[in-house]
């Protein structure tokens, strides 16, 4: 039943995608479709998005916890630099990750993601839903995310958008896994290298890190992104 619902979601995403792509910062995290039982996590992400017209610098800090064996709920506060160069609260977000199948049970692993974001001091909401997919090929892994985004509110035009993210990584060592990442959104087709790492401490505790440099390649004008993410699960 879960599998069918995800397939239906995928079909829906493809139908909508013929007319809509996401705007804003497309470069973010590539999600993996796994949830550890009883996991709790602390996360910090920083993204710099540099274009010819300016720079967007955003940070987010999140705290989350598993609510059952297959679902994890996480809350974020998002800080962004404004036009005056001051950092301030830009929004809040609640995120639900759902591991749909047991790892390794099917040919590939599946998960789903649901997000609700509210912009601070403006009537702008954003709901995101999508599926997470991962397949291991020997020492390599391919992860793909497809998201459908709906933006609404008094200060924004109501619209549907979609985003695609993909990450190919070679699991050289758990601490160092070189990766190639792809991000697709409205007028954006970015690709670039990165590295990912994971260190397991005693018990269920683990520290993950991700660094990536993404360059937009479909247009001639400058569009680079740098992202760094740190995630501690305990």
């Amino acid at each position: 039943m879960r599998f069918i619902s995800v397939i239906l979601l995928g079909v829906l995403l493809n139908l909508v995608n013929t007319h809509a792509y996401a705007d804003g910062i497309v470069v973010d995290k590539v999600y993996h479709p796994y949830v550890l039982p009883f996991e709790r996590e602390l996360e910090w992400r920083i993204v710099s998005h540099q274009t010819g017209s300016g720079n967007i610098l955003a940070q987010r800090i999140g705290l989350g916890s598993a609510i059952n064996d297959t679902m994890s709920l996480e809350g974020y506060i998002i800080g962004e630099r404004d036009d005056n160069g001051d950092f301030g609260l830009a929004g809040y977000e609640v995120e639900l990750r759902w591991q749909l199948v047991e790892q390794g049970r099917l040919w590939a692993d599946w998960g789903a993601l649901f997000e609700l974001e509210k912009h601070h001091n403006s009537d702008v909401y954003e709901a995101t839903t999508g599926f997470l997919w991962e397949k291991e090929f020997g020492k390599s892994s391919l992860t793909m995310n497809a998201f459908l985004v709906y933006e609404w509110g008094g200060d924004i035009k109501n619209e549907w958008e979609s985003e695609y993210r993909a990450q190919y990584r070679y699991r050289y060592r758990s601490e160092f896994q070189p990766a190639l990442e792809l991000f697709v959104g409205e007028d954006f087709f970015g690709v670039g290298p990165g590295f990912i790492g994971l260190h397991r401490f005693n018990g269920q505790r683990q520290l993950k890190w991700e660094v990536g440099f993404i360059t937009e390649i479909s247009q001639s004008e400058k569009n680079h992104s740098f992202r760094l993410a740190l995630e501690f699960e305990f």
Partner: protein
Amino acid sequence: MLITSLLMSINQLLPVVILCLLLNGLVDLTRKQLLVILGSGIVCSFAYVQSAAIVSQLFEHRGLEFTQIMVCCIIFIASLLACNQQKWAASVAIISAMVLYLSHYIIYIVGFWQAKEAAEPLLIGTLLGVGICFSFGTLFYFLLETLKTHFGDNSLHILLASNATAKLLIVIDLASQIDVLDITTRYVDWRGFIAENSELGRVLKALMGYEATPSLTALWVYTAAFSVFVLVCLLIGKKSQFKETL
């Protein structure tokens, strides 16, 4: 030339000495391990300098900056892992710091060594710089031992957090140089408080990345990264203590 060599050697060696002592205070590296790590660091630094010409051409001639950004991120993450007594992580952090700082120093020495009149002041300045770093290192070692005895490992965690987070300020500068990030034009001015080129300013820069005129962006990134580092360290420590009690 003498003063330049002296300042150059202090600027490039002191951060390595400080990180090395902080990590050694936390993970208790043996003398043999420390020598192997330092030797590996020197070899890696020379290898990086040798390959600089090739690396610099990568990523649209921004290869050097990208690799240095990567090295800074590795130092930050490895230092965080070293808080949990991970010797390999401490080794990676020290070697990476040596690559980051010594590579500049090697280029400086090699560049001026062959100049006839520069060799002597270069040598004297370098020896003086090494001596100052050694003296400071000895004092800093005893300071860390005292802090550890009176306040436990958490005092070292906080110092390591400020030192490792300072590497992210280098990331911001490098990213700004290659147009990946735009540092805001708004700066905070602390020059009246501690000048960056004063003795204390230099020590604080090596210890915790002190800048007399930091950008607001740098301050915000530093605050967030420092908080995350300390929080994760505390969570790791809390769990370990809990396990020991059991």
